[in-house]
């Protein structure tokens, strides 16, 4: 049962991710990316990580993609306004992407796949469990990332502030 669910979700994820790249219209790219986030949230649910799944939806699908959509709508990007790239740029990007692909394949071949079993605890992804883990085992990374967010916020306030004349 869960294998079929996984396969369905995985295929949907790949299709939507490809559609993000191949869509001519940036609006559709953004919308496909939202679909992609939904399918990834589905994977989290399959792994018993309810909290992660729902936070993923709120943060990525609900907030960040709204901003993306906002920008695309404001700039009114479409196929006509797309900048025309020279052949040299196309060649360079093809080579770069190809090299990256080679590195990816090599690293995948070198990786040894161990046995992975889902932990028996079904409540592992619940809010309480995640919270306890964050505030005990992962306290330092958690606090550091909050400082990172604070600096990001202050940075954006500084950028938005008008300069005094």
């Amino acid at each position, binding site marked *: 049962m869960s294998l079929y669910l996984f396969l369905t979700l995985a295929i949907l994820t790949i299709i939507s991710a490809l559609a993000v790249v191949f869509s001519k219209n940036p609006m559709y790219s953004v919308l496909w990316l939202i679909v992609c986030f939904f399918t990834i949230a589905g994977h989290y649910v399959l792994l018993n990580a309810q*909290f992660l799944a729902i936070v993923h939806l*709120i943060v990525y699908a*609900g*907030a960040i993609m*709204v*901003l993306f*959509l906002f920008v695309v*709508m404001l700039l009114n990007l479409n196929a006509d306004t797309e900048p025309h790239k020279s052949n040299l740029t196309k060649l360079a990007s093809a080579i770069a992407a190809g090299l990256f692909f080679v590195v990816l394949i090599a690293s995948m071949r070198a990786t040894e796949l161990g046995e992975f079993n889902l932990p028996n605890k079904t409540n592992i992804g619940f809010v309480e469990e995640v919270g306890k883990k964050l505030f005990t085992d992962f306290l330092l990374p958690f606090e550091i990332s909050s400082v990172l967010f604070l600096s990001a916020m202050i940075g954006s306030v500084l950028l938005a502030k008008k300069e005094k004349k």
Partner: protein
Amino acid sequence: MDWALLLDKTILIVIIFAVSLGIAAYSTYGERKIAAFLQDRIGPDRAGPFGLLQPIADGIKMFTKEEIIPTASDKFLFIIGPCIFMMTALMSSAIIPWGKSFNFGGHEFSLQVADLNVGLLYLFAVVSIGGYGIMIGGWASNNKFALLGALRAASQMISYELAMGMSIVALLLINNSLSLREIVDGQAGDGNVWNVVRQPIGFLIFLICAFAECNRAPFDLPESESELIGGYHTEFSSMKLGLFLFAEYVNMFISSAIIASLYFGGYHFPGIDSLDLPQNIAAIVSIAVLFAKILFFIFFFMWVRWTLPRFRYDQLMNLGWKILIPLSIVNVLVTGAWITFFK
């Protein structure tokens, strides 16, 4: 898969679906009657006794009107926009506990579709996705008024979601749970009071944000007809316009249910346990209590709409970012300090 459970949930979902749409339909009637009352008019009174068939007449009108899709619009997105808006409006009802469970000859029939461990967060996810319906619909119309309305809707929703989230954090600190059923039950029984008593400021913030998230006056900037014609639904006609307008009423119904559950004890009222009713009767009473609260809040939504004038756009943003968000953060800090030192 447990077939009895599947059957239970299917029945419950169909009932909730029908009730949501029914209440939304009659909210339109109620809205017009209340508006008429506040403005010293009579309101709809032609269709049926007291105009009670008005929503049905409106529905027939919406369905049979000519459907116009602008030639320059993006047809697929133009159609899917209102669908998404309606879908998310109906989806959020899944986590609301509508009453105590029934017991049919030993078979427990729970009145909640899904008691999620992350219940409240699910609500936030659905609400934030609801904005896409407006944005996609407004953009696909290829009309500058619709686009402006859609942009306003998006920025308004993001701004008020923050304050709403922070007001919920304070509530969670007190209730220790994200599950709506546990929050509701935590407000009943000995020594427990409704959350509105324990979280008055949080409640006010939540209420204001609920108005903003529903795009209801005085926060109906996305559609303000005097400056943007109709905002995001300018180009929509026939039932697609109907879906947009109708989803607003569904949203209002669900928000009222959420406010009643989070802050006003849900299906409980003080002293419900001391009556010692049989289980099925108690379940019916609890449903009635919840719906009485919901109807009051729907009335409150309308009362405010026909009393207050619309905000200006900068006032809306100032209220959201400079007043509500700092206030909600202070509220979280005070609540946290109170729990740390006095409990």
